[in-house]
């Protein structure tokens, strides 16, 4: 123990950059965001940004953003859970998992760009629709295309934690449930799902928070029609240069994020203690 203590003292110099990083790039930026949220566009100290946030325009935008994030998370979960479940039953499951994760390593913007072609007026989807006799539809710049592309991008992030949770599940429990006469559905609802709910929670966390703050997909696919909290922050910082209002929205996004993390992470921490 004393040796370790000694080592700790001697190695202190090496850890300075790390603590400097915490101070400068973790704590300071958050404080700066809070600080800026009290200034309006003319650099006057004011609470007007907060007052503005509680006007119908911004509240509606927040609700909208929540609604879209909820839909994205919901559809990702509905598609990802069965996928993860089937994956755990395959031979060479690590390889299949790797193949599922691989598309998430392709630059997000390239994937969004691909959908510009696929959903375009003369794109593949419209050709199929025409072939089926439905005729051309406006797909790009609609809610549907925004949701589809977002779900597409987030699915791997949902599959991974659920897969890991399913892997940890003791298979004898499932056998026991079946031996005791439970139907497949009961086994799923009463045994498998409750035991993998931690994976579901971390998956939802990994999807919901980024989904609230998406802005590039909104701009490229939804064509400014769908405004999310992320789009609003980007707009205030980079286009209208109203950093104060942008910071205020960011403050609320941070608060929302903390609440979500407390909701989805509570069980794990209890387990640790």
């Amino acid at each position: 123990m004393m040796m370790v203590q000694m080592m700790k003292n001697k190695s202190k110099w090496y850890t300075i950059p790390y603590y400097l990083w915490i101070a400068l790039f973790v704590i300071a930026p958050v404080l700066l965001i809070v600080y800026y949220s009290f200034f309006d566009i003319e650099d006057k100290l004011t609470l007007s940004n907060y007052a503005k946030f509680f006007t119908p325009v911004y509240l509606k935008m927040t609700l909208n953003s929540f609604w879209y994030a909820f839909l994205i998370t919901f559809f990702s979960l509905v598609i990802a859970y069965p996928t993860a479940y089937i994956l755990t039953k395959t031979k060479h499951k690590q390889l299949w998992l790797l193949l599922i994760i691989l598309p998430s390593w392709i630059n997000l913007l390239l994937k969004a760009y691909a959908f510009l072609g696929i959903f375009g007026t003369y794109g593949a989807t419209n050709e199929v629709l025409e072939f089926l006799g439905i005729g051309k539809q406006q797909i790009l710049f609609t809610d549907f295309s925004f949701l589809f592309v977002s779900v597409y991008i987030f699915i791997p992030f949902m599959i991974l934690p659920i897969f890991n949770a399913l892997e940890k599940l003791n298979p004898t429990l499932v056998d026991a449930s079946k031996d005791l006469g439970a139907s497949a559905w009961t086994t799923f609802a009463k045994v498998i799902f409750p035991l993998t709910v931690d994976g579901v929670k971390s998956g939802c966390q990994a999807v919901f928070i980024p989904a609230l703050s998406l802005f590039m997909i909104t701009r490229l696919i939804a064509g400014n029609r769908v405004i999310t909290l992320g789009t609003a922050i980007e707009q205030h910082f980079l286009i209208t240069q109203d950093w104060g209002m942008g910071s205020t929205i960011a403050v609320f996004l941070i608060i929302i994020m903390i609440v979500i993390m407390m909701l989805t992470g509570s069980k794990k921490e209890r387990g640790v203690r």
Partner: protein
Amino acid sequence: MKKLSKISVLYLVLVFIILYAPIFYLIFYSFNSGGTMNNFQNFTWKWYKELFQDTRLLVIVLNTVIIALLSASIATIIGVFGAISISMMRRKQLRNTILSLNNVLIVSPDVIIGASFLIFFTILGIKLGFVSVLLSHIAFCIPIVVIMVLPKLQEMSPTLMDAAFDLGASWREVLSKVILPYIAPGIYAGFFMALTYSLDDFAVTFFVTGNGFSTLSVEIYSLARRGISLNINALSALLFFITLLLVIGYYFVSKRAVRRHKTGVNQ
């Protein structure tokens, strides 16, 4: 083990098709002489040739790679020492606090990281460009390295270090001959993750980059906002194969590391 039912296989195949279709769609049309992402006309290498003649784009690719390698390396060095420092903390309260602070940048949405860094650099008077992008990338890579290295440090038995000290090793020797070799797989994994995070990042870079400096993601965004150009398709085909090679390489390296680790235990 039961065989998979037909419906399960069909479902899985469908998910795979949907996940890969857009990527192959992009690659397919990169050979289209027609110039749009529909109506495949004739096979051509035209877009690839154009890509390799576009020096501006090549400079951007180079920038992206330099930023990724530099930020991942620096973040790995800082992160490894951070992880060692966290693992040696005795007080649980302090340790949990530091860990939470460490994870802030992992869970924060990119927009917030980007916006707050933009304020930070502006206040410090750091010119937006190479330096601000590099610093930001280092900043969001550090916690990933810590997260990847920490489990390795925790599974290392403290008696290993005590033994080394008892045998008269200096702390520098303990570090280089005991700790670092033991946690090496974690360090590689952390470095690799940092590399992919840096290569992939768009939002943070978009906020903190200035006029003269651009990375690939930012460039793709501005090109894509202008509409379809098959240069991007050619570029994405190349990137896809590079990613594929990297992932396959990583898969085998990590498999070998696991095997080596296992045989080491057996001996």
